């Protein structure tokens, strides 16, 4: 890991993803702590629909505001909230519906319809993405590094990939909006007035600005100099399978891959010593087996290891330990395997 970080000093935007429960948040926190300990200002942003930063650090970081983590100087954390953004979307749409119903004299209550038209679950996701872009383009500027703890990998990739998907979607939206507005002008008798309204059509403005920002964001997200996506996994079959499956997808969105971080690695000196009992022994052998597979498939990408600790990772002190181990620890089999690879 240290070498990588050394090679990529300008790496500002770091994402961690992986199968649920593999310790994405732990890894992200570890990285954040590491940079902070180098005296940098680090922002650790959780993009999970259900945040776990607070529970990890054992202190309230919720509320959607950036706060400095107590006891971890330089680490700033935020559990990203989307409510405001979503509300903005909904309002601009409400406006449009009202405009439609201006002369309408209908025998049923339009309110519920407006409600439905404005409850689009996609808003959550796009809002989340919107905020992410904010943290990349705006808030992020105030920090030396921005580390995103994303949702389970599929969604994470999707979320990042949205810069591409939204690209398509937005351009279509903008086109059809353009068509709509030009039709309005064409079919109006008060050309000037309507022209004015059309010029400052809030929805159009929203769409366009979004598009621009997404374009910028895309530029950042695909720049291997500045961005890296880390897969977190356990030395187990399922999580590794997931990594294997999604690494291609990440490349498809040409998001630069930072590497793989292996979590909960059993230390041989613990597992194999006298009196350890066959339980740990089995686990250890199982683990090495899976590690072989991992190395076979994406050996050079394995960047660092987080050992399995005697107690659950939680609280700043544990995080410190994690960050140190991430930078330094390598289980003995790593060397031989990579040698073998």
């Amino acid at each position, binding site marked *: 890991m240290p070498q990588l970080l050394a090679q990529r000093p300008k790496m500002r935007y770091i994402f961690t993803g992986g199968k649920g429960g593999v310790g994405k948040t732990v890894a992200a926190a570890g990285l954040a702590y590491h940079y902070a300990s180098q005296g940098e200002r680090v922002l650790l942003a959780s993009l999970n629909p259900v945040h776990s930063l607070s529970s990890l650090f054992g202190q309230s970081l919720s509320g959607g505001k950036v706060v400095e983590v107590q006891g971890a100087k330089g680490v700033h954390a935020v559990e990203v909230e989307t409510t405001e953004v979503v509300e903005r979307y909904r309002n601009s749409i409400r406006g449009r519906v009202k405009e439609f119903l*201006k002369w309408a*004299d*209908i*025998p049923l209550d339009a309110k519920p319809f407006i409600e439905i038209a404005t409850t689009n679950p996609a808003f959550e996701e796009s809002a989340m993405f919107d905020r992410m872009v904010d943290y990349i383009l705006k808030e992020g500027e105030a920090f030396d590094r921005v580390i995103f703890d994303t949702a389970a990998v599929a969604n994470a990739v999707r979320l990042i990939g949205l810069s591409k998907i939204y690209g398509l979607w937005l351009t279509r939206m903008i086109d059809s909006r353009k068509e709509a507005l030009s039709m309005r002008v064409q079919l109006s*008798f*008060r050309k*000037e007035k309507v022209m004015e309204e059309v010029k400052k059509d809030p929805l159009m403005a929203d769409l366009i600005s979004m598009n621009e920002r997404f374009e910028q964001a895309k530029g950042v997200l695909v720049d291997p100099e500045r961005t890296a996506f880390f897969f977190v996994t356990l030395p187990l079959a399922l999580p590794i399978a997931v990594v294997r499956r999604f690494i291609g997808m990440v490349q498809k969105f040409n998001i630069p891959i930072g590497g793989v971080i292996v979590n909960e690695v059993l230390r041989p000196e613990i597992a194999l010593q006298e009196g350890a009992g066959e339980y740990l022994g089995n686990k250890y052998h199982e683990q090495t087996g899976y590690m072989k597979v991992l190395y076979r498939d994406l050996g050079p990408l394995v960047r660092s290891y987080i050992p399995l600790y005697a107690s659950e990772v939680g609280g700043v002190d544990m995080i410190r330990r994690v960050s140190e181990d991430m930078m330094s620890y390598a289980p003995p089999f790593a060397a031989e395997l990579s040698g073998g690879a």
Partner: protein
Amino acid sequence: MVGILETPFLWVVATIALYGVAYWGYGKWIDRNVWRSDAKKATPAHMYMDGVEYFPVSRYVLWGYQFKSVAALGPILGPFIGVTFGWLPALIWIIGGNFFIGWLQDYGSMMLSVRKEGRSFGPITYEFTGARGRTNLLAFVLFYLVIISAAFIALIATFWNAFKGTTFVPTIGILLTGLLCGQLLYRVKMNVFAVTAIGLALVGLSLYLGPIFPVVLPFGLWNIAAWAGICVLILYLAAVLPTPTFIQPTNYIAFYPAFAAIILILVGALATPFTIGASPPVGIQLDMGPFLTDPQGVLGPIWPILFVAIACGAISGWHSLVSSSSSAKQLDIETDALPVGGGAMLSEGLLALAYLIAYMVLTKSFVFGVAGDATNPPHTNTASWPVGAALLVSRIIGVSATNVLLTTFFGLVLVIYALTVQALVTRFFRLVAAETWSEGRFRIFGNKHVSTAVGLGVPWVFAVSGSWWALWLYFGGANQLLAGLAIMLISIHLARVRAPTKYSLIPGVFMVVTTLAALIWQTWTFLYSVWLFLQGDKSWIVRNVRGPIQADPNYILVAVGINAVFVLIGVVLFGVGLSMSIRLFRSYRSSVVEARGRAPAAADGGTRER
């Protein structure tokens, strides 16, 4: 005994003949040489066909629709005031006005709208006079609607109050029937013939019940006010319920009795010579000859008053709205505009004539009332029309002219006419209000219920306080002014396409000048009344108001206030109308100049706008 010459018969024949000339002669000529209507040119109905607002409809259907929409209360009450100057001037205006102006307006505004992609008046005004002009029109229409409402509410109240209270039950009957028919159509999805049958049966029933359960309010002088209140409540409901479930079915079911009345009276009027010898004789009664000079001296000089008193039948601005708002969007081919627009208007002229005859066959004292006669005080005998109509009809169906069912029937027709039109007007007011106050500080007035309440409350105040003929003249003034403005729009368009304009310009100018004059006169009357009051003469003040305010000396200051308010209304109507006219004249002038600049290739009937 009366001879054929003393019956209205010849007048009817003469009018029909003259209208024939107006249609086949003058009309066709205008259509060919001024508008150059072209059956091959695509109309908006085809260009923007959407099956809802724009779609072609056969000329017969459209004629029926147009006729139904334009022929309502106007031709009944206009003549009622008109005859104040004697029946001959009224007759001449109904014939001449319609011949040179009336049909020309209805037809012209339809053609104009057709040539303007089916745009209605607002947009056309906007095009010709700019945003300000349209706002100006908006303001004018707003007041116009208030005044119509006031006049109609007053009338409905008066009618319910008159006829010994026999018309109320049938009215409610018809409204409920309408509601029921709506439900039968929408919920039960019943076949339309069945619905009609049921509806008519119920209408008949309620008509029959009318005289059996007469409703007479106990409030004496306050009766009118109370009736007006009831009327307002009904209208409020009509305005807030969706049109297709209440107003429309009611219109539908109410159409049949109204139609029957029209036919009966027309036939009756034609039949007069052949019923000679009957007693009381059905001849022209209005004694003192065909000319009268305003027996009560309340109205003012025959010019301009007569010309605003008789609106529909001679010419009415309301029609231009109908023509451009819906009919023009559904005109199948341009050449249909003459039969639909012009034809409908000329037919309404006949209607006005027939109704005028309904007054002609009554005695002067009956129509105008007798000073000091409590049962028939001067100028309040609104029962005249039903009675006259009954008299005409009684002869051909062979019942007594005083048959209560017959008079109730005609009274009912009167009320229903007023009510259905007024329901429309109220709804329209709501829309205009919504447009005027859609945003800004007074947004609240744009609200459905608030605007409806305002659009009924304010008129109610006028209705119960001002004497109704005063209201009617304001309404006439505004309405005819609107007609004038419509004709000006037409002239502007014709000028722009370098078609001959004098045939519309002259009537346009005449209408504008006349109506503005009428408005001034009216305003002046009220102002003068106030002035007299300050001199100590209360008579005029009192004369302009009605009901308890008129009777009770304690209300004298209220009366003065009302007069003052009427002055204000007059000033506003005049002011807004004047500025609108000026804008239009300006626009006309510039159009002429600008058109001269263009190659004389125009006069193509307007294709060059597209």
